[in-house]
């Protein structure tokens, strides 16, 4: 969505002068106080876990068993399948929407604009309810996989269309003018000159957008598709260990998305491209 520059430490460090002896002392005192407060906070949280009996081994021991992790891994595979399929569909659809919007054919431009804004302006949960509750009313039976994948893909396609458009806009105008003036058709200019560069510009953003797709797949339990979250819910009913399981799953999701974000930043760094959101 927003253009995000990488957090360069330069401005952050430029804000402060090299601290003198008094400032150094004050920073040291501040560091000590905040460290103590944070430790206290952590201790309070652990205490609350202990007082409410949530540290009892029966809530955590099942996490040491292989079948637990095998089941979670199966869920993870489900998550990956949905995320990658939805991502692939969204790529194609997003590209098509962007091409339509920049085609210059008035009705097509208007249509693609409305569709893009619609999918960007609607929560993905609402789209999932559409495929889960509304589509079957018209006699269309869909497997749970598609009831989840299609809405996630549609929601992402709106965003990706805008990402692609930002990439196209980042290609210098002079190149388009040059291509047209040597006699290339507008379509050929797009295909041969603009798109190859635009796609390279947006690759890091596309990777970053996978995070949104992964997040959207977590509501798979609405359509009872066995993804990571749904399988965790099954484990919870088996072991009666709600808090520990949900905490572990949340941490897994955070790590997955963190890794995707890092990959995006790495690719952006390698190719010298800014991440467009």
């Amino acid at each position, binding site marked *: 969505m927003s253009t995000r520059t990488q957090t360069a430490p*330069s401005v952050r460090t430029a804000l402060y002068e090299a601290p003198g002896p008094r400032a150094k002392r004050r920073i040291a005192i501040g560091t000590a106080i905040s460290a103590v407060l944070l430790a206290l906070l952590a201790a309070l949280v652990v205490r609350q876990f202990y007082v409410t009996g949530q540290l009892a081994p029966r809530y955590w021991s099942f996490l040491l068993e292989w079948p637990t992790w095998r089941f979670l891994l199966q869920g993870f595979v489900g998550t990956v399948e949905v995320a990658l399929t939805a991502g692939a569909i969204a790529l194609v659809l997003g590209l098509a929407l962007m091409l339509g919007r920049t085609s210059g054919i008035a009705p097509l431009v208007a249509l693609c604009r409305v569709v893009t804004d619609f999918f*960007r*302006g609607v929560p993905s949960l609402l789209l999932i*309810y559409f495929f889960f509750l509304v589509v079957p009313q018209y006699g269309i039976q869909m497997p749970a996989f598609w009831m989840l994948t299609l809405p996630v893909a549609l929601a992402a396609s709106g965003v990706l269309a805008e990402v692609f458009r930002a990439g196209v806009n980042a290609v210098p105008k002079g190149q388009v003018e040059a291509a047209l003036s040597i006699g290339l058709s507008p379509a050929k200019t797009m295909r041969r000159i603009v798109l190859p560069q635009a796609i390279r510009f947006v690759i890091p953003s596309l990777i970053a957008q996978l*995070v949104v797709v992964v997040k959207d797949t977590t*509501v798979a339990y609405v359509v009872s598709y066995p993804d990571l979250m749904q399988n965790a819910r099954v484990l919870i009913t088996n072991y009666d260990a*709600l808090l520990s399981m949900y905490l572990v799953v949340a941490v897994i999701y955070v790590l997955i998305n963190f890794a995707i974000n890092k990959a995006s930043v790495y690719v952006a760094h390698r190719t010298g491209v800014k991440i467009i959101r």
Partner: protein
Amino acid sequence: MSLAELLGTYGQNYLDGLLATWSMTAISFVFVMVLAVLVTVARVSPVAPLRGLGELYVQVFRNIPGVALLILIAYALPQLRVVLDWRTCVIVTVVLLGSAFGSENFMSGINTIGVGQIEAARSVGLTFTQILRHIVIPQALRTTVLPMTNLLIAVMLTTALGSQVPLSPQELTGVVSYVNTRATGGILAFLISALGYVLTAFVISFVGNRLDKRVRILR
């Protein structure tokens, strides 16, 4: 079901849903802004533990799926004897998620200010607080208008998480599932809620763009 029939039976639900979405969005966004400022202050502070906490906060809440966080707050926290009512659960979830992105917006706003400006300000003798008040904050705010507009829309879309807990009154997404489990509302039942979101998003981004054009710093 025809439109008239649908609105006749469930019109009030949709209206309440729209108002619930709007009010949760507004309340959440106020707290998002406050918390985003606090987190950003922590992230640029010279105190190492605070900076670490700020970074951890942003990484966690930027990457956690909304549903996972909502479930933790709504169903796991009560096991620690922290019980919040459903509406508060949704708002807290949205605020935690939104403030992480808000802080990222502020950070990139700060980073667009040239290091030279800060050095210049210091060399003419401005103090640290003066630099923040007269140089950094005004510029950071101006460049973040558009990202924050997008964040406001994202906050509104995130309140759809409210459909995953028994809210009353329900918000727009919850109304769709409510109507469709009771009647065959068809595509119309879905479109009414969708329009509620899309039109609101349209108004927000229109106002945001106008505001941005007025305050933007051309570089």
